[in-house]
């Protein structure tokens, strides 16, 4: 590990430290939370991808995952609840050389921000959206989300969730996303590879990351901190290219992980250049 030694101070330096605002650490995520793991995977992917980090921008909304923008040592934007994607769209379209990553949670991206997600996917805006799905609203203390499993207990579904959760990869594919994958925080290698692929891919990329929330979700659903990770290990079925209709999160049948879409389609900017700019120049 000698290469990781800071020769001036003799202090151990993590190889990803240059991508972190180390003066803002420790972070505010709870013990047992998976966001940090997913965040590390993203930073590793940014490093491994070889992209120019001065052009990588991270945009977050509100919530636990939304705090990621505050810890990353890149141009980073912590916006309003649900609006990370349209904010990121403006950034990207006004400065196309930026490599835009939206890092946010399931509540932010799919309840309050759901409309923006489907439209950015439809337009094929060139960006990477990483959604930390912890099955509930963690920041506000564990309320039901659009991803909470049917009958799961939360502070607003004390007798069990009467609703049906979203199948996020299905929604992403149906909306027009050109890259869609799902992993858990236990599958860090696969997740890192996916984020790297997404960063280098032109078009709208979506990666769902299942992540434990022991403090707010696990506690109310008889899951100890390790139980969720054990479940990821036992129930995960890696099935690249699985049909999107089979991707409901079903703890009985198993959780299907993998890459479900990787296609090519012109991006919004390419279409705009082709139709509006080339004809006029």
């Amino acid at each position: 590990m000698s290469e990781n030694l800071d020769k001036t101070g003799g202090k151990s330096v993590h190889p990803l430290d240059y991508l972190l605002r180390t003066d803002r650490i420790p972070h505010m995520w709870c013990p047992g939370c998976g966001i940090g793991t997913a965040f590390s995977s993203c930073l590793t992917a940014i490093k491994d991808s070889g992209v120019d980090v001065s052009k990588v921008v991270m945009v977050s909304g509100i919530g636990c995952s939304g705090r990621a923008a505050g810890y990353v040592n890149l141009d980073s934007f912590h916006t309003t609840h649900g609006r990370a994607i349209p904010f990121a769209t403006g950034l990207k379209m006004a400065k196309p050389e930026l490599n835009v990553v939206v890092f946010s949670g399931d509540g932010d991206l799919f309840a309050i921000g759901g409309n923006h997600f489907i439209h950015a996917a439809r337009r094929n805006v060139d960006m990477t959206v990483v959604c930390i799905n912890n099955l509930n609203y963690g920041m506000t203390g564990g309320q039901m989300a659009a991803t909470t499993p049917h009958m799961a207990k939360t502070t607003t579904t004390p007798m069990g969730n009467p609703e049906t959760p979203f199948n996020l990869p299905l929604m992403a594919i149906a909306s027009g996303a050109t890259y869609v994958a799902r992993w858990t925080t236990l599958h860090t290698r696969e997740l890192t590879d996916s984020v790297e692929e997404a960063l280098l891919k032109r078009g709208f990329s979506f990666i769902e990351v299942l992540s434990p929330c022991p403090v707010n979700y696990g506690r109310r659903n008889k899951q100890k901190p390790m139980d969720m990770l054990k479940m990821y290990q036992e129930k995960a079925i890696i099935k690249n290219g699985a049909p999107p209709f089979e991707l409901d999160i079903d703890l009985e049948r198993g959780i299907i992980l993998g890459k479900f879409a990787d296609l090519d389609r012109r991006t919004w900017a390419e279409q705009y250049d082709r139709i509006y700019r080339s004809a006029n120049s």
Partner: protein
Amino acid sequence: MKSVILTGEHYITGDVACAEGALAAGCRFFGGYPITPATEIAEHLSERLPLIGGTFMQMEDEIAAIASVLGASWAGVKSMTATSGPGFSLMMENIGLGICTETPCVVVNVQRAGPSTGLPTLGAQADMMQARWGSHGHYEIIVLAPSSPQDMFYQTITAFNLSETYRLPVLVMSDEVIGHMSEKVIIPRPKDIEIRSRPRPKGRKDRFKLFKPGPNGVAPMPSAGEGFNMHITGLTHDERGYPALTVEDQEEMMTRITNKIRRNLDDIIRTESYYLDDAEIAIISYGVSARTSMAAVDMAREQGIKVGLLRLVTVWPFPEDQIRKLAESVKGFVTVEINLGQIHLEVQRSAGGKVPSFLVGHPGGAIISPDRVLEVLKETF
């Protein structure tokens, strides 16, 4: 590439004049959503922006529109959106993000009568308090009110200049009548148009403090992708831009974002006087109502009534010093506006009980006729 500034005489609507003013000011990104009576601004820019290297995006709703405008501004591009009442309501939260993160941009509201869907095709001036206080929290804002298509052209440029100078969303509060009215608009030569741009950082990037105010209270602004590794948040933040969530931090940030406006009122506030020098009655008005009030002043003067008009080009920050001074010399105020008393309350407050203050208002859907203003002048004084 086509001309950016279409110097010459044009016969165009206020909405089109607004769009041309934006282009002349350097606007190169528009994120919008269709809504009567502001749609023509988006339509015109959808055609013009790509011809001059800009980008037009029709977003999925007004929330996305304003969010995209804030993002584009941080990419270093002058950006604008345009809407009317219902869309304006949807934009409020992100206007607050723009205030908190000190993001320059322009929001045009071509007002129609509300509340709710109201009268979509008919004008009003009833969003003036919403323009002042619509986003949560306490803040300062700059709001301009154009009175003609020509003025839409100029006030849109002024709005960009003020938003860039003071780093905040500036609101142009037009109305359906001005927006849809066709009139002669003169677009000057580029060298005759004053353009201001945001202050830019100088010196070493690693020593740069994102929100450290410059001499006029405004911090220089980097753009994304320039290597500043900046963090921008809607949380209360310190000069580095980092979340800082104590009472002291709140006070420091609030002082910064309010003082940059409060200490530059001379540069920000614009008013126009008409027959005020010897006036015994002062009409206070703005936007389309200032225009009809001018006719009322002419008619009253013909009948020997000594009345003058103070037109508020800048409505917020409110020109209270000017009203206070006028209260020393006139025997009363009449505020003319298409609502049931919004700016009227501010005039009353600024007059401080020295002289009476009256409202000539209307619930919306029609302009206030000069005859009606004259009638009130005669009845009241």
